[in-house]
């Protein structure tokens, strides 16, 4: 039996992301046909989503959504954007309600054993880190495909070996999520086209890690 822990979750996510050295990004316009309405999210559902995200990502809830569970100010409100994106998946609401009933590591372990929620959890982790949405079915197909199938897929691209990349489709959820992905903070960097450091920052000492993740 596979041990279920945040380490295995992240390993699965890493495996997905590592093979997606170059990801295929669905153009933003393609989402125009699927526009979720901006409706008020029930406060306890959002809180549960943050609690679940904390366990999945390893990032404290107070940093994912300041102000929601402890005093603080959340100027970006990214949590509601990810909630509204994830809720389109059928298994999302039952998972949230189950987590509300039992907000424990064991509950998360249960989600990891169930294929209906395993890949959804991976999608949520990737959303927080990369600001992009990987449809759970895509992640599942990627995980399930055999090494031979993956190799054949690469060959079918017709490209030279050095230029073959496994394409895992994702969608950048919004310009804001692109800039707020946690991967940038952990890398002590910033995304292309977006930097809020002071003019002349390149000539100074780089900020400490704590300044990125606090």
């Amino acid at each position, binding site marked *: 039996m596979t041990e279920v822990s945040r380490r295995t979750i992240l390993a699965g996510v890493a495996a997905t992301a590592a093979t997606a050295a170059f990801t295929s990004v669905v153009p933003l316009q393609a989402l*125009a046909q699927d526009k979720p309405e901006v409706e008020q999210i029930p406060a306890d559902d959002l809180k549960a989503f943050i609690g679940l995200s904390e366990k999945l990502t390893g990032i404290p809830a107070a940093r994912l959504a300041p102000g929601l569970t402890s005093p*603080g100010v959340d*100027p970006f409100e990214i949590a509601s954007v990810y909630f509204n994106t994830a809720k389109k998946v059928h298994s999302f609401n039952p998972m949230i309600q189950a987590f509300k009933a039992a907000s424990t590591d064991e509950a998360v372990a249960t989600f990891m054993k169930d294929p209906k929620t395993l890949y959804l959890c991976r999608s949520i982790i990737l959303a927080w880190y990369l600001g992009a949405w990987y449809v759970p079915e895509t992640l599942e197909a990627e995980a399930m495909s055999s090494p031979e199938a993956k190799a054949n897929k690469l060959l079918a691209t017709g490209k030279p070996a050095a230029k073959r990349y496994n394409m895992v489709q994702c969608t950048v959820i919004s310009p804001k999520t692109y800039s707020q992905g946690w991967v940038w903070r952990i890398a002590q960097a910033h995304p292309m086209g977006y930097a*809020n*450091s002071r003019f002349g920052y390149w000539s100074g000492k780089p*900020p400490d890690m704590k300044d990125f993740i606090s």
Partner: protein
Amino acid sequence: MNSLHRPFLRFIATLTLVVLFYSITLTKGRAAGQAGLQQPQDFNVAVTCPDVKLQAINQIDFTKILALQKNGILGLPCDSGFASDGTDLTTNLQHGFDYYSWLTFLALNSPASGAAIGAGAPDAPTVWETYKQLPDVMLPKGKPPVDWVESSANPLVGVNNQIVPEGCPDPKGRMIIHMDMEETYNEPFKSGPLFDQNGNYALFVILLNEPMFEYINHRRLFNVEGQEAFDSEISFPNGTLKPDENKKGRVGAIMIKASWKLMKEGTDFGKNVTPKYHMIDGLLYRPKAPEICRPVKLGLVGFHVGHKTDTRQQWIWTTFEHHDNVPTESEEKNGIPSGTTFSFYNPGCKASDCPVNQTPAGSWEPDVIGWSPFPENPKFRSQIVRTGRSPVFPDDDVGRLNKMFQAAPQIKNTVWKNYDLITTQWPSGHCAVDAHPENLPDATCAPFPTFLANSTLETFSQPQQQTEMRGDPDAGVPLATSSCISCHNNATTQHRPASRSDFTYILEKAKSSKLN
């Protein structure tokens, strides 16, 4: 000989003591002066700061506000205040900032004579109209600006010690609108001009208060060479509630950007017309026009305030608009009542003929397109809608706040009831109190709300239309969609290599004293 020596020696001793005394005094004074030159608080006006702490929106006490506003500018907040019960902090802080913004608006728009807002005529010169205009600070050939004149000396003097361009008469209190400066008719980053429904440019002015002006003046930051020679970090004076030994706080640096509409006699002012705008007399300065300096009547349509404070080192950013500027997206979608008119939108024009939020084609300079006020057949009229997150919170707290202030006794029968606060943008991170944040990853300190645009001042960089929101209440592209703090974070001086200029683009307008 002894009888001569003793008096002589006494004389020498006395002279020595005198010389020593004066040299000590002068040295101390010089040192104090030099030390003073390095202290940004030197030119910061000391005031009794009004109490702006807001516990809840339903606790706004208009009797207290009336008392605060009794002496006009003395009601100007030194810093913001907020409820601090720890819950729902974002909403409570926003309430506090919006309340602060209204008090700031009332104080700055109070008559320059010192009376309370609403006490004067609709066109009584306001406090902020006695500040210095940018063209009077950043002069051609890097010349030093002329001194600040205390407005109390002559409240009708208008813009502070205006420099009168050649070809213009004595302004006599009229504001000179420098159309030879592109920023007067073209929006930030050359994003386009705004034309009203009469075919006239919206006109933009930038002014600085005394602490901000004196900081630039005394450090010689008004020209490129002065900026090169300045070897400290530029840090404008803070507004502060912290009392000094005389129990006074400080005002801090304030910069204003206002947008004006040309007023039409018979429609906007004149006999039997109830004024809806705060109006001023202006002089439209266009050196290449047949009439170089043309008298005009201007109405205030947009009003930005940037205020640097102790607790918000990235400044607090406030913006107001006139009611009649533009409809919101929702209003347009739901249908605009028949007979409603706007300054920058025509309800009777179809989308195919009047595409929304578009800039005009072709050249934008007034002299190139041959523009003259109130053209008979205007080539272009802007069709503008306010887009993006409006209101900021679903409970429309700012809408309620607007209604409360507009119904206040000193406002409700004046033109000021026609002005709405859009919202206040403020840095929300812990770094907001840090005067020397060094090299943080986010020097903007997480502004909230993320985006902010005035439909007359950032017309073409407003957030996206709601149809594109995709579940994100802030539909915009960071660093492309308008955000006061994010944009101003990139402001620098004019000299090379440039340095940070503490969230103002004013220093970028400096000229060189060496170039011909």
